């Protein structure tokens, strides 16, 4: 056993050198913690106000948490999605966030006292506005359009945005969802396991539209100074997705974890989100958003399923999806 401890110590050498500074371990999705995500800027901003070392551990957050159970090293978890919180809540690993969510800048009211949203967005079909000049104004118009548009989507079984689309269709069409999927199937070029492949196929010109977010054009506008990408805004409304933070109840750094939860809704954190994660901050006045965010299309209606509804609908909606597209 001593050998193992020694070996573990060697591998964790970097960590133990900083042993005097308390470490706050936060699990995050890979894109979040990577150099291109918001993680590094958030780490710098938080470390400026805490005497601590904030470490993001990246990977598949939920499976990892479920595997580790109560022995998890995490003090907090960031990047959970609203459609999978039921399973996360049922682990019993999370403690209340203790934040006031009365004045968030989100289109829906937030009353959950365990999971705290830090950013949000809408799923949408993104297109090239130099090629499509008459974008559909509603989901119904898209389904019934005579145009030979080819769309690439993500598979709901492997992708969170694909899952959101499935729930989006279910919320608009209810019992008619299967028929809607059959119509949409004629326009679906193909589907990919993840968002990246889809988006790559769109920017390469292979597909006319891609399932993404209403905020995707912001990247092209701001980072590339390219205004040719737009999101089609539908009358029926768009499916709302928020990304969440949760505090682990069994954390050995309870004060730091609380400080981190306080930090989430602060302006220092929130102002990193628009250009760090290309989505809307959960609590930041519109006047403080980057100027070009005003150019983004904004849906009139936010469609959102509570976690119980989403959990109850997932399996039947997937059955409909499979039978409509499996033909």
């Amino acid at each position, binding site marked *: 056993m001593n050998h193992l401890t020694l070996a573990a110590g060697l591998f964790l050498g970097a960590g133990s050198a900083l042993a005097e500074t308390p470490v706050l371990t936060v699990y*995050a999705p*890979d894109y979040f913690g990577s150099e291109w995500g918001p993680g590094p800027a958030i780490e710098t901003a938080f470390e400026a106000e805490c005497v601590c070392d904030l470490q993001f551990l*990246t990977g598949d957050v939920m499976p990892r948490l479920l595997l580790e159970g109560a022995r998890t090293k995490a003090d907090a978890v960031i990047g959970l999605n609203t459609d999978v919180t039921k399973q996360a809540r049922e682990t019993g690993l999370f403690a209340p966030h203790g934040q006031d969510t009365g004045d968030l800048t989100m289109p829906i009211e937030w009353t959950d006292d365990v999971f705290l949203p830090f950013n949000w967005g809408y799923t949408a079909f993104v297109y090239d506005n130099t090629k499509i000049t008459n974008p559909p104004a509603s989901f119904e118009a898209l389904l019934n359009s005579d145009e030979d548009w080819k769309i690439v989507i993500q598979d709901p*079984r492997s992708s969170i945005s694909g899952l959101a689309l499935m729930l989006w269709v279910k919320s608009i069409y209810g019992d008619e969802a299967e028929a809607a999927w059959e119509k949409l199937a004629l326009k679906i070029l*193909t589907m990919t396991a993840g968002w990246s492949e889809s988006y*790559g196929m769109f920017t390469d010109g292979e597909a006319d539209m891609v399932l993404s977010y209403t905020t995707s054009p912001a990247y092209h506008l701001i980072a590339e100074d390219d205004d040719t990408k737009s999101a089609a805004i539908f009358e029926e409304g768009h499916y709302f997705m928020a990304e969440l933070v949760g505090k682990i109840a069994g954390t050995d750094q309870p004060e730091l974890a609380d400080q981190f939860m306080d930090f989430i809704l602060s302006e220092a954190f929130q102002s990193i989100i628009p250009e760090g994660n290309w989505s809307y901050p959960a609590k930041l006045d519109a006047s403080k958003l980057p100027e070009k965010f005003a150019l983004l299309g904004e849906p009139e209606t936010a469609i959102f399923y509570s976690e119980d509804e989403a959990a109850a609908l997932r399996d039947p909606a997937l059955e409909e999806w499979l039978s409509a597209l499996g033909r």
Partner: protein
Amino acid sequence: MALRAGTVSVWAGAVSAALVLALTLGTLGAVVWRAEGFGGLGPRDWGYVRFTVWQALASAAISVALAIPVARALARRQFWGRSALITVLGAPFILPTIVAILGLLAVFGRTGIVSEVLNWAGLEPVSIYGIHGILLAHVFFNLPFATRLVLQGWLSIPSERFRLAASLGFSASDVSRVLERPMLRDVVPGVFLVIFLICTTSFAVALALGGGPRATTVELAIYQAFRFDFDLSKAALLGLVQVMICVVAGALVFKVRLPSTSGVGLDRVARRWEAQGLGLRIQDSVCIALAALFLLGPLSMIVIEGIGGLFSLPISVLEAAWNSVWVTVVSTVLCMALALSMALAVSRLSAGAGALVEGIGFLTIATSPLVMGTGLFVMIFPFADPTALSLPVTAVVNAAMALPFALRALVPAVRDLQAGYGKLSASLGLSGFAWLRWVAVPRLRRPLGFGAGLAAALSMGDLGVIALFSNPEVETLPLALFRLMGAYRLDQAASAALVLVALSLMAFWVCDRGGRVNVDG
């Protein structure tokens, strides 16, 4: 003395086989243990199993069927740039799937070159999406690998045989019957098995080019169980189904295969007197040209897309490339140690026991990377921080994943070595390192180099088991590519992909070339 050396190599092979078993069945067992049992499979899941087996059989059959004429053409012809062509043709095999998909689409997609040309000629454009798209992609990946292995089989026929055949006045069809078919009967089943197995674990390609849930493979169902349902027990059961497919396929192939030893020669370049006719020359040229066109088209598109941004790549991508080089070196050395020890053991064991060891070597490609990663995580987590081990774990897993390919290159060669030189070595009392130094390494240099080249290239391109192990501060090149793509930076990702392809090819070339010093081939 020889007996003792034999015992040592059998033991080394057994240890390697045990390590492979721990990585495959061991990790699966860890997942089962964590899940506290197996879940159940529904009718849909069995549909996925049927589709998986079917598309893999078709992909492997087409790849091998096309590889034989191409390899024969390459074996019979010498031309300027032949060796460079053979090296570059190996590139598709090592492409990360996401890069390969975009490369294929640039040629065969809706707005790809082929459709543009058809449009221009006033014809209907082709659609790549569907079962034919999956087969096209799988053949694109695997044809080069199959060609290389079959070509190696051809080159292992001693040139003296062709000389003898010529002096006996053999026609091309006589040569084929007496020399080539027995070689193919030995080599082809193993190649078929490897490609079949690699296609059974395909999912991103199958889904993207298959066009929808009809193209669901078992591996995608494992993803669903893991990420959508969080149902480990079902993931474990599906993982077991994959292993069973491997076991059944392996048993069938070992039954069909007719091991032959082509005997020993003096390693001269084979001159082919029987194949000088104009008809055969045209046939061979057409085979080589078509294969080159098919494989180089998408590769060229990857180069074109990536070359513009090459000098604006962020420094972190170069650091990632450096990490990848190290992971590759470690995993190649490990992979070759495993492969050589197992191949030596196979050649010294009885036919049944040898087949078992060889079969164990195949398990790693039939094991779902997701199941392997999860199992390793479950095994490591109680003792150490898995994230801190991300690079060593990636190296070990990549070595295991490349093992079947290295074994394919080594096993027939070691068997020939044993049959041709075993008695002589024994009578000279050559054993141990002296035997390795003077008999084995010089004779096995070509397959060792080729096997190491494959292992290195594969390891460079493989994402490994990052789902649970990734560390934001330590990344490999495929992971950097994946992260760039996830952050809208597709142009930089295309350049990173080009760097990856170049490094993989270079790794392959260095190893393979090392194996061909002084040997024209």
